[in-house]
């Protein structure tokens, strides 16, 4: 019985250390803000090709002079979608398919791609995406 208790104690002890480390880490994170990088506005030139174009984390669907901007991050696990096949956006990681306006066509993803707020700056001829990506 004594041996068994010691066994359990040593087992527990090992794990307690691990859990402590995690709490310590979460404390550390708040103290180490300088390690967290900041996100900023993204600017894209207005002269984008018609239809779908991919811009590192952003997908723009241009129809004449209307811009439809969605996040390229798959809602399943966050992979960057950068391919289109037969009129569907295709996630290269786990094969989620979305329609060109970001609606889920087939899984594993369940949520639609995030719509990104954006505005057009005609003076500078740029499309400004306001959401951090």
């Amino acid at each position, binding site marked *: 019985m004594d041996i068994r208790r010691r066994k359990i104690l040593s087992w527990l002890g090992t794990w307690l250390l691990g859990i402590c480390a995690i709490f310590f*880490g979460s404390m550390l994170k708040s103290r180490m803000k300088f390690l967290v990088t900041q996100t900023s506005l993204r600017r894209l030139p207005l002269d984008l090709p018609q239809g779908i174009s991919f811009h590192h984390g952003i997908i723009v669907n241009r129809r004449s002079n209307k811009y439809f901007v969605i996040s390229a991050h798959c809602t399943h696990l966050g992979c960057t979608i950068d391919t289109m096949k037969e009129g569907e956006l295709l996630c290269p*990681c786990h094969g989620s398919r979305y329609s060109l306006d970001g609606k889920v066509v087939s899984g594993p993803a369940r949520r639609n791609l995030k719509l990104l707020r954006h505005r057009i700056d005609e003076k500078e001829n740029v499309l400004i995406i306001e959401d951090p990506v």
Partner: protein
Amino acid sequence: MKTLSEQFASHMRRFFELWSRVLPMPGFLISACMFVAAGSGILLAFAYDINRPFDSLQVLILSNPAGTFLRGIHYWSAQFFFVLVVIHLIDQLSKDGERELSAGQWARLSTMVPVTLFLMISGYLLKGDRSAILARQVIEGLLGTLPMGDTFRFLVLGSGEGLQFVYSHHISTATLIVFMLILEHSRGRWPEWLSFIWILGISMLISALKMPGLSHEGAGTLIKGPWFFLGLQQLLHWISEPLWLVVGGAICFGMLCSIPLIPAPSPKYVKVALAVCLVLYMGLCLTTYAFRGPDWEWALPWKSR
């Protein structure tokens, strides 16, 4: 059930008997792999630049044949390390080797599996190429499903897209843990010199035949992860809620850790369950490797371009 597990155990025993006639025991080979991988890793670290990971690897590969070769040795010895850890575990479990260790020791040694996995994956991420970036996003996603996911994510991967945390963990944290575990387990014994020869020889031979590649920042409608992750990738394709898989993995790991704590005869059932999981998972890895083509469609490998 009982007979089945006994049959399995006896088959394994025969297998390892044959093994021991040709090769040094897996334990020794593991240590040897560790040294080979660490040694080649040290050399690679000279050439690796954390600020431009992808580029520094390209320069290494394209400019220095020795560097390419060395990277091959590092890669292959690491693969063997992982495979041997699993084999060693099967070997020990099939002859109830866990009884020779204390529960704490067993639990610590069990962490060898996830820590090794982490070493492998962090190595994969350090390539900094497209598949590495995607793999990182998947891991971020997976960690994000956990309670306190943000904290985990920060501790393991840091924030932003930099590889500073991953690199630090790869070359120091995880390596150190593995070293300590091996040191404790082997009680300071050096591996037989023959194990070194085997591991170095095979790693060099395979490196000469097949170099680990880099993937290109180009189109591809299916990016396959590292081979041991393919089963997971397939499961993630099927299952919308990644948390189930994280929980599943945690349960398997929990079962492994707690084997010595379970009163007889239950450990047998646990072992059989783990063995079944492993076989299924390996099967899944293999099918994904061979039969998944572009666009996540099933494809016959001999019919592809």
